[in-house]
Each structure stands twice: as structure tokens, then as C-alpha cells.
């Protein structure tokens, strides 16, 4: 078992310092990169999709050197890839490992899907209450309409 783990890790080389986002649904890897603005990231960025996973069949992984995500960014990851695990690496060692969590309140990061919502027409921040964590449904504090997973875009 331990041996197999090592072989799997080798598919994406280890990083010395930074963050690993593991257990991302394969189809969401590029979306995670996009919403975290990692396309312009100046340091080492390693990624893989369609890796075998006991837990989820196929999975993706992203390793970001010298990057430690702030809560705002972790919330974004949770909205796109609720199954993801976030691992903090220092000196090649795992110093922290946690499952991301869909927050109860989502502030600033999601755009309201309603074009007539005041948040899309005034310089202001958005604010949603998560009313369904599983299906991912967010109720806008302002227009009270529901932004769901399918029509969710990020700021």
C-alpha cells in the first residue's frame, strides 16, 4: 500500500514549499486553475488529470510552489471542487492537510446570475447565503434569487 502511494505521487513531482490541491474531479482541474488566477502564476505549477483514485475513480491534482492559499481562495476551490483536499507543504513535508468546506456565506467571489441584480449594476461586493451545500445553491442577499452551480461565475 505504502509503495503504491509513493508510485502515484511520482506521477507529479514533489514540491519543496507550497500547496497541493488533491482529489479534484478531473473535469474541474482547469477551472480551479482559472478561478485561482494561476494561469499567470510566475512560479512552478504542476498539474495532472485523470489519475487513478481509489476514492473517486479518476482525479486531478495541482501543485503550486511557494503559494499558500488564503481563506477566500479556499472558499473558491470548495465551490468548484467540493471534494478537494488541501495540503500545505514545507521543506517537502506535509504540515497541514484538510478537506475543503463549502462555507455558509459566500462573499465577494461569486457573481449573481441575475443581470437585473443591483450587484451587477453598482460598484459593490456580492454576498450569498449557501442554502444547499450539496447541490450548491446560493441565495443572493440583495435580489434574493438563487445562483446555482450551473450558472455560477466567479469574480
Amino acid at each position: 500500500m505504502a509503495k503504491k502511494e509513493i508510485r502515484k505521487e511520482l506521477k507529479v513531482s514533489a514540491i519543496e514549499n507550497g500547496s497541493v490541491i488533491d482529489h479534484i474531479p478531473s473535469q474541474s482541474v482547469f477551472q480551479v486553475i482559472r478561478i485561482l488566477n494561476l494561469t499567470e502564476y510566475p512560479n512552478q505549477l504542476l498539474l495532472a488529470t485523470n489519475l487513478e483514485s481509489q476514492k473517486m475513480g479518476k482525479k486531478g491534482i495541482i501543485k503550486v510552489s511557494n503559494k499558500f492559499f488564503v481563506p477566500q481562495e479556499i472558499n473558491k476551490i470548495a465551490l468548484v471542487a467540493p471534494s478537494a483536499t488541501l495540503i500545505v507543504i514545507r521543506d517537502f513535508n506535509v504540515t497541514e492537510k484538510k478537506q475543503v468546506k463549502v462555507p455558509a456565506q459566500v462573499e465577494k467571489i461569486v457573481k449573481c446570475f441575475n443581470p437585473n441584480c443591483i450587484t451587477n449594476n453598482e460598484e459593490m461586493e456580492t454576498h450569498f447565503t449557501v442554502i444547499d451545500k450539496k447541490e450548491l445553491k446560493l441565495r443572493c442577499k440583495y435580489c434574493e434569487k438563487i445562483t446555482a452551480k450551473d450558472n455560477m461565475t466567479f469574480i
Partner: protein
Amino acid sequence: MKNKSLISINDFTPEEHIRILDLAEDFERRPTQRILEEFVVATLFFEPSTRTRLSFESAASRLGARLIGFSEPASTSLQKGESLRDTIRTISNYSDLIVMRHPREGSARFASEISPVPIINAGDGANQHPTQTLLDLYSIRKTQGKLDNLEIAFIGDLKYGRTVHSLVMAFCNYNTTFHLVSPEALKLPSSVKMHIKEKNLTYHQYTDLQEVVPKADIIYMTRIQKERFSDPIDYEKVKNSYVLKRQMLEGAKSTMKILHPLPRVNEIAIDVDANPMAYYFTQALNGVFVRQALLASILGVVA
């Protein structure tokens, strides 16, 4: 309720709704009282609405408050591109309470976060219009003597009608049976039905208006708007099926009343107006008393 903004019907508890209705009764008995003489009320209508604005202004005037504001944005700095944030921040310096209507959904909630003085939402796009809901509650309690255990029929555009959504939600507190009559394309959204189910209440859906007439304590009519249909032929097919005519009222309960948020187009035939069941014009008058109760309690003059 002092200094509390009213943006959404659920901002006030059911107990606070009842308190407003009780106060409105007092104002109906004595509509002219100069209890708000020291206050300035601003009515900001970023979108025209004659009825709602005049009803608020009448309510405030009868209580002696002074009024400032505008009835359409054309004559204001908005035309120059001023943000809502700046408009509210400025006008809240000039007034003790702001009544506002705005075409964007969520605008009133946002204004209440900016403004140091309380806001009453007089309609934010297709979202909320809580003072309409309170005057509907008042009208129903007044005509039926109670709010509990009523059979309420909602007719017409149940999908887009915000007054229907808010009123259904308010009545979820009162063991109501809902009769929902609409064309297939304009049924009550599932997000609203969810509230009915949460309270374990019953609703029945119909496409035939005549069927609900004998069952209802209240018939709440709404207008079906042509622009809601993508196919004009679909509109032509249904437009006359949701028109209430005098002869249809024969089997109705004698205590039944017909409500309508107005303006009416053709969904209630003129010959219904003379029937004692027609209540929609009195309903509009009740709006003044309910708004007096809101102004007085939010400004802290009555508790």
C-alpha cells in the same frame, strides 16, 4: 420596529405584522393625526409608480410629516450617472426615513446598508413589495375577521407576480389552504411552493378559474401580461380564461371577497365592481392606513 428598515416581508416577524395591522386599524378610525410634524420623509421613485407613491405621500401628509423626493429619475442627478450609493448617502442627510422604489432587484437592501436612516422598500424590480403584502393582509383580516384557516385562491400570473409570492409566504404562517389557478406556463415557482411544503400546508393547482370560486374565502386576481409569453398564440389562447365575470360569482361563499393589487386591465369585468364581493378599491384605500402604521412605528412615534 423603531429605525428598522422594511425591505422584505420576512424582515418583520409575524408578531410585528400583526402589530402593524392593529395600528393600521387605529389610523383607519382616526386617519388625520399630526404626530409626525417634526419628521421629513423622502420618497425616491427611481421608477414611476403613481399609486404607491401617492399612497405613501397621503399617509405621511395626514400625519403631518414633510415630504421631499422625486417621482421619476429624469429630473435628478441620476441622469448624470450618479451611483445609488451616493444618492442614498446624500438624501439620508436630508430626511428621517426613505421610501424608495427602484427598477433593480436588491437595490433597497443595498440602500439600507448605506443609509443611516431606515428604508421602506416600495418595490425593487421583480423582487419584493412588502407594503403591498401588509395591506393585503390587512384587507383580508378586515373582511374575514381572521387570518387563520382561510381558503385563498390566487389567479393569473403566479410565476412572475411578486405580490403573489410575498403574500403566499406571509400566509404560510396561518394554516392556509392555497388554490392556485394559472396557465400551465405561469404556475407558482417551486421556490415558493417549497415554503408551503415546509409548513405542511396544502395547495391545489388548477387551470380553470370557475372551479375555485365556490371554495374560496378570498380570490386574489392578478394580470396576465402578454410579454410573459414567448409565443403570442399561447397568450391569445389563455387570455380570456382568466377573466372574472359577474355571472361566475353565483356559487361563491357570501363572505367571499375579490382582491387585486391594481392596476387592472381586463381581468375583472367592470360589471363585478358593483358586486359587494368586489373589494379591490377599498383594498387600495387600506394601503394608506397600513403605510401610516409603518411610518409611525419605524419613526418611533408609536410602539
